């Protein structure tokens, strides 16, 4: 198709289009129905994470495996308890990563932007 013929079809289509619809009270109607927008706060998440980590640490401090593992880790000795601790932490991190990716994917595949 030549560019000129293409332009002619486009001009016909544009001429056929009615253009923007006049307001006629539409905006007022929408504004009346506009709900209060919930603000997303980050602090509850941060407080929750901090509290969870602190409680976890306090409750596990008395477990010999964790105590010995942590001490060995800090001294640079990769004993069985230190490696166990490392593997558990790596496992939890991987699970969190998988969960985050799954959540992000769900959000992206949501048809509504």
């Amino acid at each position, binding site marked *: 198709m030549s560019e000129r013929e293409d332009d002619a079809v486009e001009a*016909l*289509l544009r001429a056929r289009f009615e253009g923007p619809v006049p307001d006629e009270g539409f905006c007022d109607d929408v504004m009346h129905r506009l709900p209060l927008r919930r603000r997303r706060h980050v602090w509850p998440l941060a407080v929750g994470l901090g509290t969870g980590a602190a409680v976890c640490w306090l409750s596990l401090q008395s477990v010999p495996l964790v105590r010995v593992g942590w001490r060995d880790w800090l001294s640079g000795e990769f004993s069985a308890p230190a490696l166990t601790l490392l593997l558990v932490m790596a496992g939890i991190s991987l699970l969190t990563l998988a969960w985050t990716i799954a959540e992000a994917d769900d959000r992206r595949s949501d048809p509504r932007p």
Partner: protein
Amino acid sequence: MARVLLADDRRAFEQLLRRYQGLVRAQLRRLLKGDHARADDLAQETFLLAWRKLDQFRGDARFSTWLHRIAYTCFLQARRKPSWPLDHCGGETGEQTAAPHAMDLHLDIESAMQRLSAAEQTVLLHCVQLGMSHSETSYVLAMPLGTVKTHAAQGKAKLRALLADWQDTGRKEQTS
């Protein structure tokens, strides 16, 4: 836009609403083949959704394009509902059998549009009538850019062929 996002400013949102409502409603009216009431319901849903999801607007497209995308998604979701009337399903309609020798060009182009596939009609609506670029249309319709270009080219070629046929028929009838 920034004022709306930062200050949760309803007045600024109202300005955006007044600026863009006309084209969003026009888009939905065309998609719904002239059902103004249902189109306005969907337009209202579109703007309420936009208000709720403003923090998800990343600025990777124009705000108007983002709104058109929400509107098109609302349209698709409404179309999936069982209560959706069959005559809004897109594609071919009763007008397909309209007399091909109609002389009025506006009627001709309308009848010719009805002979295009639903995808070609939708792409031409966005690319030509709403004045979007191919990439904007691709964003709004969530369709690959190549597919948009193909539908646009095929749609225009079909329209040109149909209009040429009908004009020829009209001329022959006039001379006979």
